[in-house]
């Protein structure tokens, strides 16, 4: 899934953008991943409207460039964890769409056997530590992934995604503080689509006009990028991830007051807070009538559709033809249709599985569970 073999730091050293180093093949992969998310989500919405999918269902359309751009800048083993608008992350991380759709259908072939649903996409093999449904509740988990990487002295970086609603949760602040004092290799990625459900960020978040204040309070490095432009997202993360990855100064080697240099300029080399300015083209969830924003506002953002932006760039720069792009889109449509077919035909979560996976070491009425198909099927859904 990693879209680059080029070292971002080398690219920066030459003064160019990291994305300049991306090959045509890598660029087309990024385009395809965004198209797949778009077409998959269109199918998700249809299935939800047909009551095939239940519960809360949050659509990723409009935000594709955030997941694809940032994950493309990671190593395969870099763990990610995020919130409940998580289908796009699962697909960008390489989860086969069949497992993702089957999960929403509550089927046994789903990534979590139909026990999690739309808001809980997990993929251990692809280092996706889940979508999490309590706003901000995943932030301490992200700090924990960073802590574990540091503890084991691995060369990885954890990405912890959160929406702008989570900015107002205590869990976010506590996690930022722990990341700062222990120099954890974690990047908190703000997926800033301006709305926590129906509340505009300006109504719910202090300093919404300058979110660098959130990072500055902890001496954490701050960056921001245009979340509708996948190459801008990639550029931002290529450099931020490299900085965090190279910051080797674990908590147990850090000394006292004089040895820890926090800086208002954001010199802290370890954790980072990245504000990715994006926009969701659909409602908060499938049950959102969107009375809180105007059609004009949505329309303005749709003029900068992240998929069209990349298509235009590729064609204008001669890196791809319209026909190539159309072929990828058709493939995305077909794969998404196949995911629906798979989910429709897969067996329900059987009654016998209700009492598995409650305990890894079960007792009484509980039963030891097997691994889901996503792990046991080598071909990942084929």
């Amino acid at each position, binding site marked *: 899934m990693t879209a680059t073999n080029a070292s971002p730091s080398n690219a920066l050293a030459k003064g160019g953008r990291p994305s300049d180093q991306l090959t045509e093949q890598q660029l087309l992969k990024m385009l395809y991943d965004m198209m797949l998310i778009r077409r998959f989500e269109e199918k998700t919405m249809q299935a939800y409207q047909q009551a095939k999918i239940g519960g809360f269902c949050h659509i990723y359309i409009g935000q594709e460039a955030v997941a694809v751009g940032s994950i493309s800048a990671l190593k395969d083993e870099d763990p990610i964890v995020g919130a409940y608008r998580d289908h796009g992350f699962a697909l960008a991380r390489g989860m086969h769409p069949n497992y993702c759709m089957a999960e929403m259908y509550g089927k046994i072939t789903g990534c979590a056997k139909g026990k999690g649903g739309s808001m809980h996409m997990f993929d251990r093999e692809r280092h996706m*530590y*889940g979508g999490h449904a*309590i706003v901000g*509740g995943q932030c*301490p*988990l992200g700090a*924990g992934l960073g802590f574990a990487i540091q*503890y084991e002295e691995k060369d990885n970086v954890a990405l912890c995604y959160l929406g702008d609603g989570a900015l107002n949760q205590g869990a976010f602040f*506590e996690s930022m503080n722990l990341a700062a004092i222990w120099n954890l290799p974690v990047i908190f990625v703000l997926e800033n689509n301006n709305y926590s459900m129906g509340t505009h960020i300006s109504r719910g978040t202090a300093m919404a006009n300058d979110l660098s204040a959130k990072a500055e309070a902890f001496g954490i490095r701050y960056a921001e990028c245009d979340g509708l432009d996948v190459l801008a997202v990639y550029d931002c993360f290529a450099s931020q991830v490299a900085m965090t990855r190279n910051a080797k100064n674990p908590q147990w080697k850090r000394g006292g007051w004089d040895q820890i240099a926090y800086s208002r300029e954001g010199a802290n080399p370890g954790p980072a807070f990245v504000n990715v300015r994006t926009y969701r083209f659909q409602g908060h969830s499938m049950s959102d009538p969107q009375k809180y924003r105007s059609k004009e506002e949505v329309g303005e953002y749709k003029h900068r559709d992240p998929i069209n932006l990349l298509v235009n760039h590729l064609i204008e720069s001669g890196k791809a033809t319209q026909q190539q792009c159309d072929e990828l889109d058709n493939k995305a449509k077909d794969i998404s249709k196949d995911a629906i077919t798979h989910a429709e035909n897969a067996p329900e979560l059987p009654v016998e599985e209700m009492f598995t996976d409650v305990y890894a070491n079960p007792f009484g009425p509980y039963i030891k569970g097997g691994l889901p198909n996503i792990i046991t099927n080598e071909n990942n859904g084929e």
Partner: protein
Amino acid sequence: MATTTGRTLQFREALREAMQEEMRIDQRIFLMGEEVGEYNGAYKVSQGMLDEFGPRRIVDSPISETGFAGLGVGAAMYGLKPIIEFMSWSFCLVAADQIINNAPKMLYMSGGQFGCPIVFRGNNGAGGQLGSTHSWSVESLFSSVPGLKLAVPSTPRDAKGLLKAGIRDADPFFSLESERMLGMGLHGDKDYSRYLHGNKWAPPENDADFVIPLGQADIKKQGTDCTIITAGRPVHFALEAAEALEQEGIDIEVVDVRTYRPLDIETIAGSVRKTGYAVVVDQSWPFASVGAEVAAQVYEHCFDALDNHVLRVHNDDIPAPYNRNREQDMLPNARKIIEAVRAVTYNA
């Protein structure tokens, strides 16, 4: 009177032994909490552990329970084995989302992909004049959550054996200890009931393989006339009551459940079938409590063996008062247990 003395061992030392022994054999285990390191433990449970294991594995956290409890969950998902110490379980309430949403449901929500082998431990229960907010007993709050395991040990032997089992277990394990009991054992066997003398108090010496499997109740005192079912500090209240009732010719049996989840109802029911009478003693509040659950299960399993209905002794249904004497009054103390046993056995 039996005076066989086992090891002179404080409760806090048994907890420390458990963590030290497991940390020596498993590099994935780390201890994190407020004042666990340089301060040597707010209650000296982790005394000396920073010296032995260093700051990588004994980690002083800021006062930030949501942050460090959740950090532990994330680290456990990644493959580490965190021991998260709450200075008091009363302080865990601000971290509720992490400890009862994230930790125990992760395995299920991920379809078996991500387990959460984590230990949360700390002081539980009232009795130190700390006022209401610091006097929580959380067993009734948390025992109803599927996915976690929960122990309330009453002796150093059990505390060590259960904690070691919990550390080795693949599931989230909650160890509810008692500040009022941490120093018990300092003065040898004068510190605790004669019924616990001998090998019931201390764990065996130099036995790193000593563990107590979760889900096995223990009969702390054999008796014939009435069964008392309890756990944690109230075990000592029950044994105090047993001494007094002995003078009246009533011979009670004290069943220490040790773990509320899993609950060993077989041992409990076996005792009730023998005595025909049951008093459930529980240091949390009566409504929808672990005591109420145990009583209900006693009815389900051995209704025909009961010669009276089950009586329950709990904290009084009030916030813990600060006043020293009134606080002692509100606990499920020996006086209340004695009255309940007399009543249930028609000796009132």
